[in-house]
């Protein structure tokens, strides 16, 4: 286990909050992000050697999620200096402090092997991110924060109850403290089934609220719509991943207890409902930040759908977690830039973004194409494989619905995106002094490049880790032909 | 025929000569019949030869708006017509050129002629000629399927894709049977439309707004116009050969066969002349219905073959 991953960002948060120099603050932010990523990479080497009784430590699943969050955070941290320089009116202390605390808490969450700690980490990330949503200090951001806090807190309260239910299930079966995930899975035969099921329902609704699964997602468009793009990126890619991880941990226990069919049915249902709901609100959506929020709802749906289908799809749901997080960072950051340039995020006012902010406009377009599953970007790989697995493992209608929904969402989303990106900027609209610079675009370009690389290639050790992470959440069988080919090739002796 | 290469060569020569020289006789015959029916003496049977000779001496007048396409129309019509004439059997069993699929080439050569004629009409920019061109292509869209469905019936009957086999070896099942009658009826309609005869068009009028073919060549004169007239008569001959082909017995010696062929052509000319004398031209809006009747006739012919 790696204390420094948790402690370093928290200390940095304290320092950033304490000092008064904005320059040093952003330097601390960027440095911490880099150090954290380096630390994660170093710590990942030991994901396979987690001691059985450890309360904290990186396993494959946690390591994968933490890696995603760390990379995402780095992208945002590199973008932050330029952004904060554009917002001298706002206090960067709370902002930077909150960002760094989130990183620390996410590291805690990823390493947590205990449902209680997991829950605590989720709760605290909610609190740490609330000030970020209130960053703009206006009525709308206040409303968004209020909804985020109240709905989020209720959800987390339900998750706590669910956790307690599962603890009671263990208690009834005679499983003793500490209730580490490993122990719960090992002794899963002893758990009381009714409590376990009820506990899963409660945690699903609870963490699902935090993830933004329909119909508990309602805070999402408001919160994402009113925050700066950088916070949107972090919420959509980071906080949701945290909640998803927490849900996966519980799911793993439930699946180990042989209740997977029950849980999968629920997950598939929520997945399809989320995609449908998102689709309904993406059609004719004039506000592009809310559009992205609904896209986030959609992709949360895809994640749980993938887990619900299981097998190969579960593995690619995990892959999709990374793909979605990175693409969302590109989308939210470029949307933020465009918002800044036009001082509006509504459609009739924002047109011709590739003329006024060429780099951001193109990045937004590419990000849109990536997130909707255009090869060779990474989300295509995951969406293709989820569809493939659904269609070939007996979920024929689920797979069909998945593809139909993807098509409908593309239809709705593309309408808004094209009107926004192309054409001529409307003449009446005031032009703000904002211009695309290297500092406000380079992090996005890097992120998009990473998405592209992920769509084509992945280092071997990461593949192995992803595979073991998938096994932890029920993705054991290498059902995909690509897997089989791979196995065959391994037998052939690696003829590259 | 392979036994008598000499006879065969002679027949080919006869075929070429017939195609080149005999065609202007047919309009002459028709006009003579029409004149006789009307109680006039009428122009001599060889009138078209005189016209052609005279026109080839005359100086041509060209419109200022025209380009080289204007000339390509008449030239292409005659060239395509002559090549098409080499594909259809006249008096002998086989046309000089015959191969699997020549039937399609045959039809498309007429398409080529039509394309160039229409373009050369449009080249003048005259709204009259434009109107004629528009009608030409409109009616062709209905004539074409009738022609092809007739081919389909013959192909089904003979199992061959060559015009020579289709026409000269229609097969026992087909000859003098219901399908053949229907095909011939359909093709007769095509014959009248393609050659702009009554009841589709009136070859004698020039200034009435209801015409098709004649109005397209209003601006042609001199040698190009000679080609136009020659091309039209060629079409009468070649399509006539198509029409009479399936009913010729072709079971006698070569000489008799050729005689039969010529007699059949004369008969056809007489029938056309007779028909034109007793019928009036349709209203322009009725023409499509007439052509649809041709399509239906050939389609029924095909369906009857299956029974």
């Amino acid at each position: 286990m790696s204390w420094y991953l948790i402690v370093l960002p928290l200390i940095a948060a304290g320092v950033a909050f304490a000092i008064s120099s904005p320059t040093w603050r952003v330097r601390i932010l960027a440095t911490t992000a880099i150090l954290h990523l380096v630390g994660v990479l170093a710590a990942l080497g030991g994901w396979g050697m987690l001691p059985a009784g450890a309360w904290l430590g990186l396993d494959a699943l946690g390591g994968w999620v933490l890696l995603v969050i760390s990379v995402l955070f780095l992208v945002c941290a590199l973008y932050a200096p330029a952004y904060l320089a554009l917002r001298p009116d706002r206090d960067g202390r709370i902002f930077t402090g909150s960002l760094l605390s989130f990183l620390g808490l996410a590291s805690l969450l990823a390493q947590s092997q205990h449902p209680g700690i997991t829950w605590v980490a989720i709760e605290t990330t909610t609190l740490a991110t609330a000030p970020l949503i209130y960053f703009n200090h206006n009525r709308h951001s206040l409303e968004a924060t209020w909804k985020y806090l109240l709905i989020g807190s209720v959800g987390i309260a339900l998750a706590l109850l669910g956790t307690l239910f599962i603890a009671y299930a263990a208690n009834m079966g005679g499983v003793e403290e500490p209730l580490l995930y490993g122990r719960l899975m090992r002794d899963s035969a002893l758990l009381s089934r009714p409590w376990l099921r009820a506990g899963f329902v409660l945690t699903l609704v609870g963490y699902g609220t935090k993830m933004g699964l329909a119909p508990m997602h309602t805070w999402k468009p408001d919160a994402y719509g009113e925050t700066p793009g950088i916070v949107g990126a972090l919420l959509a890619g980071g906080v949701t991943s945290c909640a998803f991880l927490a849900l996966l941990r519980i799911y793993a226990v439930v699946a180990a207890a042989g209740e997977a069919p029950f849980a999968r049915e629920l997950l598939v249902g929520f997945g399809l409902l989320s995609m449908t709901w998102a689709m309904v609100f993406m059609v004719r959506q004039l506000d592009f930040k809310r559009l992205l929020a609904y896209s986030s709802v959609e992709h949360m749906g895809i994640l749980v759908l993938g887990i619900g289908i299981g097998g190969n799809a579960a593995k690619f749901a995990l892959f999709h977690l990374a793909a979605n997080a990175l693409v969302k960072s590109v989308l939210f950051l470029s949307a933020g830039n465009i918002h800044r340039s036009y001082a509006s995020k509504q459609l009739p006012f924002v047109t011709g973004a590739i003329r006024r902010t060429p780099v951001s406009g193109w990045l937004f377009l590419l990000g849109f194409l990536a997130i909707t599953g255009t090869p060779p970007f990474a989300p295509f790989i995951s969406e293709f494989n989820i569809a493939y697995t659904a269609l070939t493992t007996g979920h024929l209608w689920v797979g069909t619905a998945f593809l139909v929904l993807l098509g409908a969402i593309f239809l709705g989303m593309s309408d808004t995106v094209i009107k926004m990106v192309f054409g001529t900027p409307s003449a009446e609209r005031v032009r703000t002094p904002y211009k695309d610079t290297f500092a406000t675009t380079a992090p996005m370009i890097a992120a998009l490049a990473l998405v592209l690389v992920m769509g084509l290639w992945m280092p071997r050790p990461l593949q192995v880790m992803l595979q073991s992470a998938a096994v932890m959440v029920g993705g054991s069988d290498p059902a995909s032909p690509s897997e089989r080919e791979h196995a065959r090739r391994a037998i052939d002796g690696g003829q590259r | 025929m392979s036994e008598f290469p000499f006879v065969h060569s002679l027949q080919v020569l006869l075929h070429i000569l017939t195609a080149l020289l005999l065609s202007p006789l047919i309009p002459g015959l028709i006009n003579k019949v029409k004149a006789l029916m009307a109680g006039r003496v009428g122009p001599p049977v060889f009138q078209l030869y005189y016209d052609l000779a005279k026109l080839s001496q005359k100086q041509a007048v060209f419109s200022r708006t025209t380009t080289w396409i204007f000339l390509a129309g008449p030239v292409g019509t005659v060239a395509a017509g002559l090549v098409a004439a080499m594909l259809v059997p006249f008096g002998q069993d086989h046309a000089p050129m015959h191969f699997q699929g020549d039937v399609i080439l045959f039809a498309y050569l007429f398409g080529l002629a039509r394309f160039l004629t229409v373009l050369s009409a449009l080249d003048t920019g005259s709204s009259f000629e434009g109107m004629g061109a528009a009608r030409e292509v409109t009616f062709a869209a209905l004539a074409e399927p009738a022609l092809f469905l007739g081919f389909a019936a013959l192909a089904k009957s003979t199992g061959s894709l060559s015009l020579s086999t289709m026409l000269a070896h229609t097969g026992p099942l087909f000859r003098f049977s219901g399908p053949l009658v229907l095909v011939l009826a359909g093709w007769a309609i095509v014959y009248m439309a393609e050659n702009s005869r009554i009841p589709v068009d009136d070859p004698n009028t020039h200034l009435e707004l209801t015409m098709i073919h004649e109005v397209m060549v209003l601006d042609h004169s001199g040698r190009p116009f000679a080609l136009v007239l020659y091309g039209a008569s060629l079409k009468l001959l070649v399509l006539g050969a198509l029409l009479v082909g399936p009913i010729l017995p072709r079971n006698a010696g070569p000489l008799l066969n050729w005689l039969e062929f010529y007699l059949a052509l004369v008969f056809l000319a007489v029938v056309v002349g007779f028909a034109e004398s007793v019928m009036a031209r349709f209203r322009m809006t009725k023409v499509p219905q007439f052509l649809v009747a041709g399509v239906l006739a050939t389609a029924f012919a095909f369906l009857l073959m299956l029974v």
Partner: protein
Amino acid sequence: MSLYLLAILVAALSGVPGLVTQKSGAKEAAALMSTSALLGILASAWVLFGASESGNSILMLPATALISWGLVSFDPIAAFFLVPVLLLSATASIYGIGYWGDHQSGARQVRFFLGLLAAFLALLVGATHAFVFLLAWEGMALMAFVLVMTEDREPETRRAAWIYLVCTHTGTLLLIGAFAVMAGATGSFAFSELPQGFASSGRGTAMFVLFLVGFGFKAGVLPLHFWLPSAHAAAPSHVSSVMSGVLIKMGILGFVRLVSWVPDPPGWWGGTLVALGAISGIMGVALALGQHDLKRLLAYHSIENIGIILLGIGLGLIGKSTGQPALQVLGFAGALLHVLNHSLFKGLLFLAAGSVVHATGTRDLERMGGLGRLMPKTAAAFLVGAWAICGLPPLNGFVSEWLIYLAAFRGLALSRWGFPLITLGALAVIGALALACFAKAYGVVFQGQPRSDQAAQAAESPSTMLVPMGILALACAAIGLAPVLSAAPLDHVLSMLAGNGQHLPTLGSLAGLPWLSFLAIPLLLLGFILWKWAAPKPYAKEQPTWGCGYTAPNARMQYTASSFADGLVQGMSWVLWPKVLGGRVRGFFPFPRRFESHLLDPVLDRIADPGLRGTAFLLSGLRFLQAGHLSIYLAYVLLTLLMLLVWMVV
């Protein structure tokens, strides 16, 4: 193989010099693209004329577990399709020097994306693995999307590009489904033969339908064609030539690949394709007749020609399922050759149309006229294209249609005579209507007198635009005059489409291709002699066109495009539903009146657009679900929880 890959690379890089240098890079792009074309066509010739030793060479891309084997295989199908891809890209690139010069907006961008488009197209033809295929497929679609979007300041362009993007993405999603079903049957994402009997199973049916719609969208098969006319009209003309010439053919490539995987296609597959082909062909040309926009007219003709190609493939499939090698050979060969031919003459037509648009600044047919005297070379090029597309001898269009006709005539002998008969009738109607349409297009654009000032002031385009047209025109003539050259390459491709252990007869043994060349000689010779005889002597008189007694005719009194097509459009008004604005002229001294007639797209304007609007309206009705009230949002959480708990207990 390495030549092929090199060609892809060079094509992909062709737009790069323009991006990095101060100079425009147009000539560099054209030079690189031409090099790529030479390399690629050399590679294709190597494979198609049998000089290649192994036949199929396979490339394995560096793979990961996520992508698995990336396979690119330069087999005869790839080689055959590569020829038009690179040839048209090269001609478009050369043409772009003069047509989309640096004064135009986004010239560098156009060149860059055109290069990438060519590269993706070239990669796609060789893709024999679902991932690579989809990658190249989407890459191609996106590059085309960006290119269509070139003039994005026009609302119409944005709309056209959006419709295109949505259609192509929908198609891709369907293909994902299709490949998934297929991989479920073969156990591999790499393309391989499907198991015997699979095609007739329920999953096989699902796969076929998915492929049909997915590829059909790209190819522009009616009723999935509706993105095509506006996208082709909106794109710069040289891009349209690539799109219409080769991009939509990738849908056909898909069908051809599909045929090669299926050992035992059910009979109804071919029947479906024939029916769709007949509908596309006839409706495509009928809709083309009523267009006033030169490029839209050409675009509808692409739909028509896709229909003709499908007729051929459909007959070939019927041959394959009924065990009729002759039908198989003739149908497939006709379809494949028509793919090549159509790309040549349609590319040529779009380039010539671009030249006209370049000179007059309008696409409206009714504002043109008399351009044949002002731009004779463009006119000649357009005429060659029109001649060929009408399928008239002795150009290439005739050869491929002739092969399909042969297939149809042979098919009449089968017990399933219905589909060949449909093919025959459809081809006859299509031929006649296409002739009418191109007579109209050529006549109204190039003949008569100019109908507007822009047309009167038009001038011939520069040689950089004329040379590519010349190249394509020569190619059309070459195939038309010496079709026998295509027999050996087609036999190579056909061997890949044969069924299990089936040996197909050669094309040469079934179709007398040399006859066509042989008969072209008297035709041309006669034409030449008669021309010499009748050609205007120097002393020939020039006069105004005879006005039939009317003494003051002017250019506006010429027969218009609409009037020319009116007879046919009215005749087919029961399927075309032309939209007529303006009334009849009444009385003896009528006031001036306007009259307009438009032909709406039956699918886009009458089904897809209102359908989407209606759906969007219905979905907007659900907006009340998120009205902003926190209490209601919390109630959602509560209700969800209660429902789940109840569901769990029950």
